[in-house]
Every structure is written in structure tokens, then in C-alpha cells.
């Protein structure tokens, strides 16, 4: 009999066991919160109890070594409790105010910065990239690291922003980082039609499924030196990668032509204005590892243009709504091209059907 008795369908452990005492006691009875300093907030309960939260950035990709270190810190200052946020930051939950500063000191010494609370830049939601994914048109962690090194003061709070600002990164059109609704989105793009391995194809995938997988109908059956296979009509391909996902014999990654595009003005919350999709700002920037300077520059330029021009509480989308897209492109110094005009299913719905224009 094996060392461990495997069980199935037990589901995740019940969260209740992981809640610190102060939360158990004041669960659902929080009165208000305040940001006491960059990266630190306090939640005050109806009971009067206080809970301090210190938000600490992580690269999301974490070694167990670091996690264990976080545990040591949590044991020391947080009664052994810790949580992560929906943007991959760690939140240390501190019942005793006296522990806030010592904890911050220790965390920062270990190399993890404090910040991202309130009207600041938080962590970049991102994806696998070359570290683990087969679809990636660029690396994820490397771009994120390079961008955040440059925008660091906007996370720590040294520099101000008009409102919460969310940057997201995804390494291909699948958008695992859900970049489709971010203030600034960095998206890896393939820009050339996939290449087909005609020897493998018959073995590894079903041709009808493959043909059906293409939204633009760019794939058609073909016999290549005797073998049943398919061909891709280059002009009809917009590099979505769907065929690649369904068939291993299709290869979309291309060291020469893969790169990055930049999107802006998305948001998720329903605060003030409805949620919005990100819109294309910069169609293409070639990959330039290890630090993608052009991408970093482009993102910084957009963020700082926004920071200088937007009004208090205006998210990127609200700011652009107010000044208009022509002005936005002028301010960031980006030419408006044919790539910016939608040509997909509902393109016509994006045409400007009023004479209301700034002249």
C-alpha cells in the first residue's frame, strides 16, 4: 500500500481554517478602511478592531524558498497568516500596528517592494511566455520585469497617478492575462501565417477540425507530395493561432516576425463608467530581449502622458474619452494607421457616425 492514499473530488480546503482570528471575529463587519501610507492600509471593524495590510509585490513566479521566507515573516508579525491578491501581490495581514514597520523593513530587505495600493500602479497581471508556454510570441516575465523596473516609483507611491492604473501582459492572442480590459495592455503578437509540417499533420490532427478552427476560412485541404494535408492562404490569415492550438503540426512561432503590440483604455470596474475593452495604441514593436527597451519606453510614455494630463480619479479610458482619440495619438506621438481601424466582425459599429468632432 502506497505512502499516501489518493482521494479525488475533495475540492480545495475550506478557507475558514486559513482566516486570522481578527478576521474570523469581524467577518463581514468591517466598517471602513484608510490608506495609512503607500502600500499600507488599515481596515477598521464595527467592533473597533483594526487590521493592517501591507501589500508586497512579487514577480508571481516564486521559488518555494521565497514562499518559506514569507512564511517566516508571517509567523513573526501576522500570527502565521498570509494571503495573495488577484494581481499576484502578497498581503501581510497585521493585527498589531507595532508590527507594521518591522515587517516592512524585513520584506524590503529580502528584496520585495511595498506599494500598489490606491491610486497607484499595481502589479502586472501576466502569463507564461517562454518560461512555459508553446504559444508565446514573446516572453512574459522578462517584459514585466523590464517595465516594472522602469515604472517602479509609480508602484511604491513615490510618483502619483490620477487613479488606479492596471497594466496587463499576455504573450499571445489567447490573452490569458486578460489584457483585453486594462488601462495599458502589452500583447505578444504573431504577425505571419503559421507554417505546416506536412509529414506530421496526417498523424497528429484531424483535417476537418483543423479547417473548421479557422475563423477567416484561410485553411483549405491540399495534397502535398502525395500526403493528405492543408494549406493556409496567407492573405486571409490574421495570426490568431487557433489552428495552432488545435493541431500540433501547425507552427506559428516565428523568431523573426513575432513581437509586441500596445493597447490602452480598458477597465473592469463598474465605477463611474462601464467596463471597457482596451483599444489598439501601437500595432507592433519587435522583440528585443533581454529588456525590450522600445516596449518599456512606449509604456512609460503612455503612462506619463496620462499622469500629466488626466484629472484626479480619471482612469485612462475616462481621460481619453474627455480629450478624444485624435488628441491622444497626438500626445503620445503615435501615427494613426490603417491597423487601428477595426476590420473584424463588428467593425462598422466602431466607425464614427456623428459630426461631433474637435477641429
Amino acid at each position: 500500500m502506497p505512502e499516501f492514499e489518493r482521494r479525488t473530488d475533495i475540492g480545495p480546503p475550506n478557507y475558514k481554517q486559513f482566516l486570522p482570528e481578527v478576521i474570523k471575529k469581524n467577518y463581514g463587519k468591517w466598517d471602513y478602511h484608510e490608506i495609512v501610507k503607500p502600500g499600507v492600509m488599515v481596515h477598521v471593524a464595527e467592533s473597533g478592531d483594526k487590521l493592517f495590510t501591507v501589500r508586497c509585490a512579487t514577480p508571481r513566479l516564486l521559488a518555494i524558498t521565497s514562499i518559506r521566507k514569507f512564511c517566516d515573516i508571517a509567523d513573526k508579525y501576522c500570527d502565521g497568516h498570509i494571503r495573495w491578491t488577484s494581481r499576484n501581490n502578497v498581503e501581510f495581514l497585521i493585527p498589531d500596528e507595532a508590527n507594521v514597520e518591522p515587517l516592512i523593513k524585513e520584506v524590503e530587505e529580502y528584496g520585495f517592494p511595498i506599494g500598489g495600493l490606491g491610486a497607484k500602479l499595481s502589479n502586472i497581471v501576466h502569463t507564461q511566455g517562454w518560461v512555459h508556454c508553446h504559444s508565446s510570441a514573446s516572453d512574459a516575465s522578462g517584459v514585466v520585469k523590464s517595465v516594472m523596473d522602469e515604472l517602479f516609483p509609480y508602484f511604491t507611491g513615490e510618483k502619483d497617478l490620477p487613479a488606479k492604473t492596471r497594466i496587463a501582459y499576455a504573450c499571445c492572442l489567447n490573452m490569458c492575462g486578460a489584457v483585453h480590459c486594462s488601462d495599458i495592455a502589452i500583447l505578444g503578437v504573431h504577425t505571419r501565417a503559421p507554417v505546416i509540417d506536412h509529414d506530421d499533420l496526417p498523424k497528429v490532427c484531424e483535417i476537418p477540425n483543423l479547417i473548421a478552427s479557422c475563423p477567416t476560412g484561410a485553411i483549405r485541404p491540399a495534397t502535398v507530395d502525395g500526403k493528405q494535408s492543408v494549406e493556409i492562404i496567407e492573405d486571409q490569415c490574421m495570426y490568431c493561432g487557433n489552428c495552432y492550438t488545435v493541431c500540433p503540426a501547425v507552427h506559428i512561432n516565428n523568431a523573426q516576425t513575432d513581437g509586441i503590440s500596445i493597447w490602452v483604455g480598458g477597465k473592469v470596474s463598474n465605477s463611474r463608467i462601464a467596463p471597457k475593452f482596451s483599444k489598439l495604441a501601437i500595432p507592433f514593436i519587435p522583440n528585443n530581449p533581454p529588456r525590450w527597451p522600445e516596449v518599456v519606453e512606449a509604456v512609460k510614455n503612455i503612462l506619463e502622458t496620462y499622469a500629466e494630463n488626466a484629472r484626479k480619479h480619471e482612469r485612462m479610458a475616462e481621460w481619453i474619452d474627455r480629450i478624444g482619440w485624435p488628441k491622444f495619438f497626438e500626445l503620445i506621438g503615435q501615427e494613426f494607421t490603417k491597423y487601428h481601424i477595426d476590420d473584424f466582425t463588428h467593425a462598422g459599429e466602431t466607425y464614427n457616425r456623428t459630426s461631433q468632432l474637435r477641429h
Partner: protein
Amino acid sequence: MTVKKHETPLLDELEKGPWPSFVKEIKKEGEHNAMSNDVLGILERSYEEHISHWKHGGIVGVMSYGGGVIGRYSDLPEEFPNVDMFHTVRVNQPSAWFYDTKSLRHLCDVWEKHGSGVTNMHGSTGDIVFLGCKTEALEPLFAELSAEHDDLPSFDLGGSGSNMRTPSCCVGPARCEWACYDTLDACYNITQEFQDELHRPFFPYKYKFKFAGCPNDCVASIARSDCSVMGVWKDDIQVDNAKVAEYDANGTDVQTEVCDLCPTRCMEWDGKTLDIDNANCVKCMHCINLMPKALKPGKERGATILIGGKAPIIGGALLCSVFVPFLEMNPEDDYEDLKELTEAIWDLWGEHGKNRERTGEFIQRVGLSNFLEEIGLDPVPEMVMHPRTNPYIFFDDEIFE
């Protein structure tokens, strides 16, 4: 054990700078873990060549589960033998990502034993992601995670493939004054209820749940899930005028920052009382966000259910759209209504949805009206931004009655 290090001049560049470095993280394990060491090597190669060295993942997983593991093989098995296989294991996180250090250390120990020692805390869907594991290690790893332990919690796998995906939720009532329902409990309850759907792919495509306690939507549910459960209230915003005045006195210009930014302009501030026309309040949270001490959501609380959010593949990205404007969410009745709605949707989509067609796309293809009729939900104007503008109406005989 000691491992032969790779030269990684390019990656080393990414150890510099103030932001925590993922390269440092990998190296922390690479020191003693052959897999993490080789992953550095193969990654350096990608940095040199501008391309991924991972191939399509075949079907790998644990017995009797159809998901939870993403198979991954490298195209350079000879040069980097320790990552010829480098599967990820998705471990279902606890609600709102709360841990105690004991359990967290336990997870680290288990992962150290069976894999690369490198993780994602967390994956975009919410799972604890164990990054890099060999096929033969999957069963032992799963057994050790799922087995009963005396004073340690057991863990199960999350979702992948065409099944329900790992639900996630915001911190909600655990640490937020605005939670309109218990996001942690709802997330846990739904996850437990649908274990079979989570582990065995019977759907046309993936289906995601996300639970947000209020319209701020801190888990991006409206954009990143098929079913967004968004907390909201029905009655009047709770106002403490004295505190509003305090904010006004201490740097918040209530008129310009609060009233003027209200989407429906339904607030009036005369310096003493904040008069809210609650009938026209669309519960956007802005005023509450700005003055947490002074304003609170109303007392009649529940959630709006929105359906069909997703990324672009393949018909273009979609945000969820309103299905149930207001649903009670009390733990007592075990979220019956939400479960019924969910099963009705799954039945219809499961039967008629095309392969790789998400609910959002399916609804658009068959038409919202038809979809509602099939799942037995009455149309309400809240479901649309505005009624149809085109005259192409399919009339039933009922109009002549």
C-alpha cells in the same frame, strides 16, 4: 544535490533593477534543483533566439481526471534533459487566496519533493500553479496533496481543458467593508458542488466562475469569467452626513470629485446633506469608494448575475452581460437559484454548443431571446443597453391574440 550551472548572460541582465526578479527566483531553486536549473538554460536559449522552445503538450494527467495538468515537452530534450517534460499542475487555491503558514510550508515541501520548486502564486484563473513536473511524478504528487493528513489540509487539482475552471473570489467580507454577499463561501460552495464538472471535461469549452463582492469587481469577473457573480444592493446607500462633511473639510471636494463624477448625476450636496436620488443610482460604487467612512452600500444585498465573458478566441473578446439583475445570495438556501441557473445554462450549451464555443459566443449565435426561452428566464430590459434598432423581427402567432 549539486547541479552544473548554465551560462545565462541575457537572463542575468534581468536580475538587475528594483523590481523583484523572476530570474533570481528560478536560480534560488536552480542551485539545488536540476529542473529549475535546466529551465534557466532553455529560457536563455529562447532569449538568444527570440522563440519558445516548448512544444504542444500531449494529454497528461492524473487517473480519472481530465484536467488539472498542462502537459509540456521541450524541443531540446538532449541539451536540457531535466526539462524534456515540464508539465504544470494546477492546484485549487483556497477562497480569496488565504493561507496559514503551516499549510503553505506543507505545499512547499510537497512540491520540493516532486517537482521544480518553482511556482506561480497564482495562475491567472486563480490556481496555485506548480511549474514543471515529470509525468511519473504526477500521481505521487497528487496522492500526497489529496491524502488525509492529521493536522494538515488536503488539496485537490484545479481545472483545465473543456470543463468548469477553478472559481475564484475577491477578499470580500473577510477584509472588505463593501462585500454585498459572502464571496468566499459562495466560491467554496460552488467549487465543492461541481467537483465532477471541474475535473472531467464534458463541456464544449471552458466555463469560468468569478465572485466579486461589489461592482468594483476586484476579480475582474465581468471580463474574465463566463459567470460573473457581482455583489450589489437594492435599497438606499447608507449615508452619514457628518462624515461626508468631514471628507469635504479634509481635502475631498464632494461636489466636483463625488457628485460631478456620478454617472447619473443623481447626487446633490449643499455642504450639509448629501441628497441621493437612489432610484437613479446605478450602484457604480464611485461615491462609496471615495468616502468609505461616510457612505456604505444599502442593507438589502445580493448579486447581479452576468454571463458570457471571455478572451478573444475566436469571435472576439466579450464582457459578461446581465442575466439576473438581482439575486439573493444567502448561504442558508445553499445558492440554489445560482446552481439551477448554472445547470440550465450547461444543459443547453452542453447539448447545442459547438466544439470550442464559449457560452458568450453560443448565446450570440442562438440569440439571447431564444437562449432565455430555452433556459426558462423571462426577458427584462436590464439585459440590454437598448431595445433592437433593426426591424427584422421574427413574429410568433401570439402577436395576433
